[in-house]
């Protein structure tokens, strides 16, 4: 049974790796938002709310991975 627990833990670790790609995507979105604010600073508040919205939507994939790892850890252990 110890091997099974270890495999579950490895699976949970792999599941949260979805966060890496989400990090890349959110960083790209933030960089583009900085560019947009630099280009026309008067639209800053609109850009900020759009950035938060876009970042939150991009975060969904990471959250799914996190939930799957929680399920693995707390249900199968």
């Amino acid at each position, binding site marked *: 049974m110890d091997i099974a627990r270890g495999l579950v833990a490895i699976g949970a670790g792999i599941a949260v790796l979805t966060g890496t790609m989400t990090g890349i995507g959110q960083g790209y979105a933030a960089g583009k938002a900085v560019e947009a604010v630099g280009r026309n600073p008067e639209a800053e508040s609109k850009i900020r*709310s759009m950035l*938060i*919205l876009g970042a*939150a*939507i991009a*975060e*969904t994939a990471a*959250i*799914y991975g*996190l*939930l799957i790892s*929680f399920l693995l850890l707390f249900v199968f252990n």
Partner: protein
Amino acid sequence: MNQILEWLFAKPLQVEIISIWIITGVVIALVFAINNAIKKADVMAKPTGLVLIGVLIVQTFSTITKDNMGARHYKNYAPYVGALALYLFFSNISGLFGLAQPTANYSVTLTLALITFILIQRAVFMSNGFVKFFTRFFEPYPVFFVMNFFGAIAPLVSMSLRLFGNITGGTIIMMLFYSFTGYVAGFVPVIGQFDFIGPLIGPFLHAYFDLFVGFIQMFVFISLTTVFIGNEFPSEPETTN
């Protein structure tokens, strides 16, 4: 009376339900206090205190709703958005006060997302009519039915799971943090029984996971609600007033 109490508490009560009662009571008390203050307030004077808070809340959520939904429809939805925002904000930060966060329970977030989902479908119905409500799944070709169908129910799943996942993740990270600091403090001989490392580092993590994430997720939830509902209405010409 005793029988009613026994019937109420005989079933295992999920701990979130108690915090739902407390939070609902807090929101209702706040609303009644603001209402009372507004009734007593002088109309011509500058708003202060509770009246100012009420004015700011109404103004903020009216503006957010109007920006995302257009000037014609926002008045019907601004009260819902404001109530949702107050409830979600108090729920998300309730971890600071030692309550179990209701939004860390999937039933609560699914219910809130379901209300938004029904409002989205209602907006489709109102703007497209009865026939188009069903035929929109078969556009542009009938084979697109599966894609359109899952596209229609995707907001329900993604909105509820996003809120639930963020709050649950924060809760579990805080739980792991406190058990880890308790374990580390156990090595210190005399005062080791008391977890003295947790209260030192904990506040910063609480500020991030409860206040910041809670506020951001509340904002994202109401933004997505207004954007999804506003998308279903036909776009209107820009009016300047």
